């Protein structure tokens, strides 16, 4: 029982990390039809800069970590918004070219990060409590999972509030359904593109700092490896669906954890099979809709 509970809660913790990356991917694709391969770069850069600033504030302290998270959030948002304005916007309505640009950015940025911070991951220091565990019904849950889960829940709530309660949120929800009709109502949907990129980048940036907490290190390839799982989550959840991304994040991570433990480390294989099964049974994903 305690093993199942441990796997379940650690799975949810990993799912929280996947959600932080996948939420932005899903919103960006839903609104703009762009699969953003540069999303991992936002995450990696935010992870590095969050760590750089955080350790100067207080290495291994809560002040340092929380500052790092804030830096990661801001860096993610700013870099993502600039990416949209400089690289994506000039290629408006040319989806193939937009995707190719993001692929190029993703590859080039990894090389840049390796040039600055080296090819080997850097071990980081964390507040002591995060290295400990909490007993839940006999299962010793690593404390960092609680931080991941709490952050993802806060991010989910904030994004939902933004989408439901603000005028730009309304434009984004409508744009995810039918972008052409939004422009035909006289709305400059490109502003919404920048906002969605910034929101997605902020969540990914936060995810970048929390990924370094989860893995205990920062590295140039962190974003690339997480991006693969985030794409799987995004497709399973349904492209463009935030709720779908949240559900799929948890499902994918829990399946991964259980398969790794009970089926001899086959977690990655299990989620690829889950992806194939969802695509066969429900090609639009769990919560995806057919777009106009």
């Amino acid at each position, binding site marked *: 029982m305690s093993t199942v509970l441990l796997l379940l809660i650690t799975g949810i913790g990993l799912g929280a990390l996947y959600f932080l990356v996948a939420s932005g991917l899903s919103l960006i694709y839903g609104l703009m039809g762009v699969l953003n391969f540069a999303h991992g770069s936002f995450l990696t850069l935010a992870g590095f800069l969050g760590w750089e600033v955080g350790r100067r504030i207080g290495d291994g302290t809560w002040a340092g970590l929380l500052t790092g998270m804030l830096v990661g959030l801001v860096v993610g948002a700013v870099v993502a918004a600039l990416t949209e304005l400089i690289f994506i916007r000039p290629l408006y309505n040319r989806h193939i070219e937009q995707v190719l640009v993001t692929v190029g950015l993703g590859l080039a940025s990894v090389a840049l990060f390796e040039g600055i911070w080296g090819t080997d991951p850097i071990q980081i220091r964390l507040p002591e409590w995060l290295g400990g565990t909490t007993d839940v019904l006999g299962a010793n849950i690593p404390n960092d999972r609680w931080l991941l889960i709490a952050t993802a829940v806060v991010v989910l709530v904030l994004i939902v509030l933004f989408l439901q309660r603000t005028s730009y949120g*309304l*434009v984004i*929800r*409508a744009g995810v*359904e*039918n972008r*052409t*009709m*939004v*422009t*035909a*109502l*006289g*709305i*400059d*949907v490109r502003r919404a593109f920048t906002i969605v990129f910034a929101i997605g980048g902020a969540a990914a940036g936060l995810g970048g700092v929390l990924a370094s907490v989860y893995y205990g290190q920062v590295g140039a390839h962190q974003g690339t490896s997480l991006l693969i799982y985030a794409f799987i989550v995004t497709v399973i959840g349904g492209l463009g669906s935030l709720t779908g991304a949240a559900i799929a994040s948890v499902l994918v991570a829990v399946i991964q954890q259980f398969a790794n433990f009970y089926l001899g480390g086959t977690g990655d294989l299990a989620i690829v099979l889950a992806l194939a099964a969802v695509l066969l049974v429900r090609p639009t994903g769990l919560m995806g*809709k057919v777009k*106009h």
Partner: protein
Amino acid sequence: MTAILTVRGLDARIAGQQVVEGASFEVAEHGVTALLGRNGVGKSSNIKALLGLYERSGEVTFAGERIDRLMTHRIVQRGIAYVPEDREVFGGLTVEENLRLAERGGAPNRGIVAELFPELIQRAKQQAGTLSGGQQQMVSLSRALMNDNRLLLVDEPTKGLAPLIVGTVTKALEAAAERTPMLLVEQNLQVVRALAHSVIVLSGGRVVHTGPAADFLDSDLVHRHLGVSTDEEAA
């Protein structure tokens, strides 16, 4: 006739395929101008092209200003409202959100929605995707009518609607046309007869006839260009 919209040599393509070929026509600054033609002749494509929803070339002048190089939202902001074929309401949004999204400028006329379609006020919190086709058309029309527009582009507003709803929609369009000129794409010739002052007829992607609506509808040109007779229209 003084024109609010002038189109000269309009071409449009979708995925490299030409869907509008050298269209030239004018829309009067008063009343309803109907854009007619057989299925697939390019009526909707013309509207989408002049709105910039399709890749296009040619000259489109609206109230004295060239708009053929403007993006769609800029064209609409100049006072051209679009009621698309198949309604295209945002099914995941409520009726109220659909209307709020369409509000432009400082003083949208919500009163006109209550006046023309009181049913929508009662269904304000209902998701638009759960409405009937007729109710969705009311939402689609309301989005266009609540703003202070200078031209309405209305594409097949009665398509697939029950006869009772067709009457409601026709009355709403008639009321709207008293204030704002309209380019109307419509297959139902009784609706055309009730609303239109003039017609533009397309065939093979080109304009083949323009003139007063009544003259066209009473002539054998209806059969030649639309494939229906005046008897069938009456039926």
